[in-house]
């Protein structure tokens, strides 16, 4: 099996003067959940359409599962599943009929089809409601059914365009759990667009960040966090004197610090020790209530990338 599920090189798509995807170059490893992050209108959906061969690129090149998107789009769609911007379910049909139709589309033999539908619906807790008309279901249930449809034919790659958009937090959390479990069990590559950074942080091993069609960063989550800053220390307490802060600043492992009310935020260099810094503060009369050590989260990475790009644009 190819270790790279998706590879793009300078992939671009314009609509008139609007460049929706601009020289996008990325690699998605097989078997991973890959998060494609960006604000609304950044080109995420267009990228999925390009990768599925539904739109032709203006320039550039992409291979999906080893197939060229320009010449072998049918083969890509044959081996992929998709949960697009809208769930695509037939509202007048029952859940079982919806899955049955797509199982027939993918030419699954009758016995296999029945077993697979039962397996997925049972896993997603929908089996008892399979005969109900989908139009009467909640959005969360419909979205779960659409996930089942995308995975029905054992695709090696699944595209998901904002799979939890519009779901309440409980339904979204449940869908995250289902998605992670299904992805691990089925061993599929999932290419997921989202602007929900907590979702990406929870589900994805690798991410790419896009703005106005341009790729701003791509890599493992930890690599991106490092780009936005190394480890950090957050200290909650009182009596933060100038003397204490000056002593802290003089330490080589402290890159910078900021104090807001009773919250001191310290950006540290790599492999910095926490204990000597805390005792330094205590020795300088600071009352320390709580110490938290962590890294920049994805939201901070994302915002910093957006800000930097906007700055470059200006």
């Amino acid at each position, binding site marked *: 099996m190819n270790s790279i599920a998706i590879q793009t090189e300078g992939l671009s798509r314009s609509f008139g003067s609007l460049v929706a995807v601009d020289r996008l170059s990325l690699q998605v490893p097989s078997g991973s959940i890959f998060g494609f992050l960006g604000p609304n209108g950044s080109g995420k959906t267009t990228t999925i*359409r390009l990768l*599925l061969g*539904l*739109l*032709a690129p203006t320039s550039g090149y992409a291979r999906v599962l080893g197939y060229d998107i320009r010449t072998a789009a*049918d083969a890509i*769609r*044959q081996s*992929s599943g*998709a949960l*697009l*911007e*809208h*769930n*695509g*379910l*037939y*509202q*007048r*049909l029952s859940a079982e*009929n919806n899955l049955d*139709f*797509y199982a*027939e*589309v*993918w*030419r699954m033999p009758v016995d296999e089809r029945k077993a697979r539908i039962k397996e997925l619906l049972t896993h997603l807790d929908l089996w008892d409601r399979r005969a109900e008309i989908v139009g009467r279901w909640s959005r969360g249930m419909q979205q779960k059914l659409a996930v089942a449809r995308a995975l029905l034919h054992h695709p090696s790659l699944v*595209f998901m365009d904002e799979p939890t958009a519009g779901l309440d937090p409980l339904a979204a959390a449940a869908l995250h759990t289902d998605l992670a479990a299904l992805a691990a069990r089925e061993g599929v590559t999932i290419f997921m667009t989202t602007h929900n950074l907590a979702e990406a942080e929870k589900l994805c091993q690798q991410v790419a960040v896009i703005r106005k069609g341009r790729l701003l960063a791509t890599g493992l989550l930890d690599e991106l966090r490092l780009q936005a800053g190394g480890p950090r220390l957050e200290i909650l307490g009182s009596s933060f004197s100038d003397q204490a802060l000056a002593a802290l600043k003089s330490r080589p492992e402290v890159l910078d610090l900021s104090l807001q009310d009773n919250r001191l935020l310290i950006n540290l260099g790599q492999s910095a020790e926490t204990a000597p810094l805390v005792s330094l503060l205590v020795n300088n009369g600071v009352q320390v209530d709580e110490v938290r050590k962590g890294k920049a989260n994805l939201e901070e990475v994302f915002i910093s990338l957006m800000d930097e790009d906007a700055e470059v644009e200006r």
Partner: protein
Amino acid sequence: MIRDILTIIKKELREILLQSSGLRGGRLGLLFFIAVFGVFLPLQSGRDWLNSPVNLFIWGWVPFLLVSSVVADSFAGERERHTLETLLASRLSDRAILAGKILAALGYGWGITLVSLLTALITINVAYGRGELLLFPWKIGAAIILISLLVATLAAGLGVLISLRAATVRQAQQTFSLAFFVLFIPLFLLPILPEAWRLRLTQSLAQVDVESIVLGVMAALLVVDLALFALASARFQRTRLILEE
């Protein structure tokens, strides 16, 4: 390819039969049509129902009505309900999707027409047969079957072609009605033609026998049907459909 077309037809027919919009498609609509054209009208006309050339107009009209009640939904409905992009992202080929949609509408319209025709025959035989088997004269029977098929194909082809580009089902229905009106403009123009022209036209038609007229109409319908298929095939482009979604 044939298997894919059958898959689409099966899904389309299932959706049509589950429609809950009264007489437009749906089971109630079917029963209404079969009751009117298979029972009520034959009972009103008696044995003459089988021999009258007016039959050709009626059985040409029935499939048009049936197909037009469902065909606008074929692509515009999928677009409106946001199911089109997922369908286009599947492994199905363009031809299978297009042919499946056209054949589903055609099969629905022509199929119900044949059922109504059969019901009409049964009604006439039960009501007026008196132990004798009453049938259409073979030429009229064959013409009814062929003309209803060609008209159903015309409606399905035209409807799918319009539905391909319409944003909503309502828009597709409106455009379809307009196209239908345009097709009949020559009939509306007849009364306002100059007297001399009308006379010449009547004399020309009088010289042609009914069989030739029917054959001519069938040939014209066949040509239009093939042209509509070719046009729909040329206009079915995944990229355009996606961008209009």
